Structures are given as C-alpha cells and as structure tokens.
C-alpha cells in the first residue's frame, strides 16, 4: 500500500474510491480483546447482548494485535503495563485506531493526585483517536465514542494526496 498511498490527484474517481475504502474500513472495525481493569467489564457489557457491538460490524474481537485495527484501552495503565501497551500498539497493522476508554487513560482519573506509578493518560505513550471519559463510562458512551471514530475513519483519505484531501475534509467539516 505504500506506493499507492496518497499519490493520486483529487478528482471524482479517486474521491469515490476513497469513500468506498473508507466505508469498508468504517463498517468493519475489529477491536482487540484487551482488558485491563473496571472499564474492561463495561467493554464486555458493550459486546454482550444488551448493547451489541456486532451491529456495527465490530463484534469480532480478535485476540492478536496483528488482525485487529482498533485497540480500546480500558483501565489504568501503570508503569509496568505501559511497556506492553506500547509494544501492542506497534504490532498492530497500519490503519490502526485507539480509543482511550475511562478517566484513568484519558488523563489520570482517580489516580491523578497520589498515583506514583500510574501513567496520567495513555496519550502520553500512544497517539489516541477518541477519548471517552467516565469512570467507568456507560456502554452507550463507549458506543457514542465508536460512532465518532467511525465518522473520523470515513472522512480521511487513502489515495488522494493529503493536502487536497485536507481542504475537502475541512470543508465537509464546516458544512
């Protein structure tokens, strides 16, 4: 994909192809079964029957970082776990997205004042796409985060040159 990436001018054809790929990526985001703490239980509640994540095509939690394109980080990341989270993120295949679920990973949460070995926010270690605050956030809040992530995935560019796509995207954003 390296060669074809962002190498084409922005015209009707490449825009539709981008939208098609964006639709494909948006509607089949495969999360990773990665649970750290209390937010992982709310994440399991999102996979379960009442708030079914499979409705959005994201119901196939893959255990390996290789095959998953979304890593939801649910639960406090402390110094010992941060090294593993960083390695997991590096192992994921390229169009990868990160959702920081819970106050602990958005910016410290309950362990912000006195936590001597907690990382105050997972955005310190890996680039985060969507923050979902809450301790733990309700399943609907996580689905709201995933919907916003899907919008964000659907908008970005694959084939078109990055600069032209950016104006087109910002124009769409203003409208």
């Amino acid at each position, binding site marked *: 994909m390296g060669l074809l990436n962002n190498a084409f001018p922005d015209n009707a054809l490449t825009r539709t192809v981008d939208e098609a790929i964006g639709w494909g990526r948006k509607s089949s985001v495969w999360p990773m079964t990665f649970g*750290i703490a209390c937010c992982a239980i*709310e994440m399991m509640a999102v996979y*379960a029957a009442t708030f079914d994540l499979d409705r959005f095509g994201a119901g196939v939690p893959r255990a390996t970082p290789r095959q998953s394109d979304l890593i939801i980080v649910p639960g406090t990341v402390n110094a010992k*776990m941060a090294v*593993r989270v960083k390695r997991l993120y590096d192992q994921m295949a390229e169009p990868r997205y990160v959702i920081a679920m819970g106050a602990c990973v958005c910016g410290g949460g309950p362990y912000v004042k*006195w936590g001597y070995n907690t990382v105050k926010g997972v955005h310190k270690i890996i680039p985060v796409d969507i923050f979902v605050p809450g301790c733990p956030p309700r399943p609907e809040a996580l689905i709201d985060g995933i919907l916003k992530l899907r919008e964000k995935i659907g908008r970005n560019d694959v084939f078109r040159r990055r600069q032209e796509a950016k104006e087109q995207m910002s124009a769409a954003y203003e409208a």
Partner: protein
Amino acid sequence: MEALEMYAVDDRADVYTEELKLNLGPQHPSTHGVLRVELRMDGEIITHSRCDIGYLHRCAEKIGENVTFLQFNPYTDRMDYLASMNNNLAWSLTVEKLLGVEAPERAQWLRMTCAELNRIASHLIAFGTYGIDIGANTPFFYAFRERESIMGLLERPAGARMLYNYIQPGGVRRDVDEHWVDDVLAFCDDFEKRWLEYNTLLSHNRIFIARTANIGILTKDVALANGCTGPVLRGSGVKWDLRRDVPYLKPYDEVDFDVPVGEGTYGTLGDCWDRYWVRMREMIESIRIIRQGCARLAEIGGDTMDKQMKRMYKTPLEPEAGEAYMRCENPRGELGFYVVTEGGKSPIRCRARAPSFCNLSVLDKLLPGTMLADAVAIIGSLDIVLGEVDR
C-alpha cells in the same frame, strides 16, 4: 505431585526434548485481566510456573494514607470492581468500628440486600467468562443478560451501573424508590428459571465435565495453609462462611441460608468443577437471602444514614487513635481492611487483605503437571480479579 512424575521428562539419551519457555502474557484472552504466568513446558505439559503480577498496581494504599475516610470509599470500589458493593460494605464497617458508630436498621437491611445482588452479578461474570475459557461462548451472553437487569436494579438507588459508592460509613447514600422492592422480587423469580437453563447448557455438559473434573485438585490443608478463602476454600470441602460463622452484619443472623460446599460429585473433592459448582449454588442461596431481605425492607422504615454521620460530607471524620481489622465475605473470599490511625483526618496505614491475592498464590502449586488447556481452566476456576490482586 504424583501427576508430575507421570509426565516426567524421560531422560533416555537419544530423546532430548528442550524445555519451552512460554509466557501467558499480560494481554491474553483468558487471564482475566493483566496477569502474566511464566510457564516452562515440556510439549503440552507444564513443568514449572511462576506468576508475575503488578500490572494493575494503582497505589490504593498510598492514596488511603492521603485521603479522608469518606473519600477513600470510591477507591475501595475500584479494588474488586466486580463486587464493589461488598468492598464499600467492608470499608464502611471498618470505619464504623473505629468510630464506634452503628448504622440504622433500614440501612443495614439495604446494605445486605444490595451486597447479595452484587454477589450474584459477580458470580454471573465468573460463570460467563469461565464458559469462554473452556470454549463455549453462548453462556457469556446469557450471564450478561441477567447482569444487565441487576445493574439496572442497583443503578436506581446508587446512581452508577458498576462502581456504586452507595454504602458509605454511617449508612447508605439514599433510600430506594417505592417500586424497587417489587422489581427485585420479580428479578428473583425470573432468575431461577434462567439458572436451570445455565445448568443444562454448561454445568452438566459432558465436554465441560471432561475439561474441569479432576483438574487443579486443591486439597483442604493446602488451601488453608495458603490462605485461600471463599468459593476456592469451600470448593475443597471446608464449610466456612463469614456471613454465618463470624456475622459482621446484624441482618445475617435473622436470615436463614445454608453454605454450599464442594462434594466431589464429578471427580475428586476440590477440583475445578467443585469450585464452579459452589459458585453456582451460592447464587441460589443469595436469591433466598434477597427474598427475605426484601420482605423485611417492605416493613421497616426510618432513616438510612446515622444522624451524627450526616456532617461527614462537610467536615471530614476524625476517629481517635487506634487500629481496627474488619473482615467481610466477598464473592471471592474474605476481604479485610486493617486501618491504623493516629487521630488525623486520614489513616496512617490502610491495608486491604484481598482474597484474590491469596487465592492466586495457590496457582504456582496447582499448575505443574497439567496441560496448557488445563492451566486456562484452573485460572478461570480461581476467579481472580486483578484490580484486587494488585490493589
């Protein structure tokens, strides 16, 4: 250890098998959170195992020393995040013991009912994830369907779905609304029908029995020596339940329930199936307790928070110097808080005795000699929660 001899690495000169080092890493679908087990294996058989914990150490005890007594209540929620009502109960009782205060009667009955509801929710998760560990995905979804209704019930008085912060030193945060008791009774009737469904689907399934009977056998004295408590200890045949033997809450005396103990129905006493079966029967005992609790709640009225303790929201509590150790029966075992104060508004030492921490220390003695698939079954049967192990 005789299991180990049976699979001993044969030392014939020509057959040289190298030991494989495998770690069931912190990110693994079946380690119930972030536990790393270093296994040295000979083919599929595990010869040595060593647990490595601390991936969720969140300095709860340091926070306990810097935060007031009331403000530490939400942090006890986050220790055993599957049974946060019981954690609040343990912490509130410890603080009340230090202050010498007694919660009003209605608050005590509310505490017992909510703690038992939370025990069912916690056992449901243990049942659901144990099914996934053994390979059957469907029981997980049925277990979470019941759990959603329990969370809905507990959300009305407490305000949150999972980490309630509802039981506070001195009583209970607020009273329940008028339809709550009827909805809980309706849930109890519906749950018993579902419980029978779980048994036909998983408990008596031949493959499930083949995977769990006679595996991870924990004898009585090894369990006692290693400090195991709760379903892990009762699975090995020790009839010990704090709610009955060392009653820490008055309503537990006026409620009759019996304590399920493992009998070794499908294999020897103390195997994975017994621990699983003790948890399943405990759910039904909790339903009996909740029914009697609800009957009593409908009668008694009165305040839900001790008069003196109402001022703790404005000015922090300051118990006089001393120390107290209080134990309560959590779904995973005996949770105890040992608090040492020197008169200030926060304790100088706040130590939590987490049941999963002690239950997990047995894993290194159970794993050698079993296969990789059994290791997953044994970890699942111990039902550990890493938030409590690492605090």
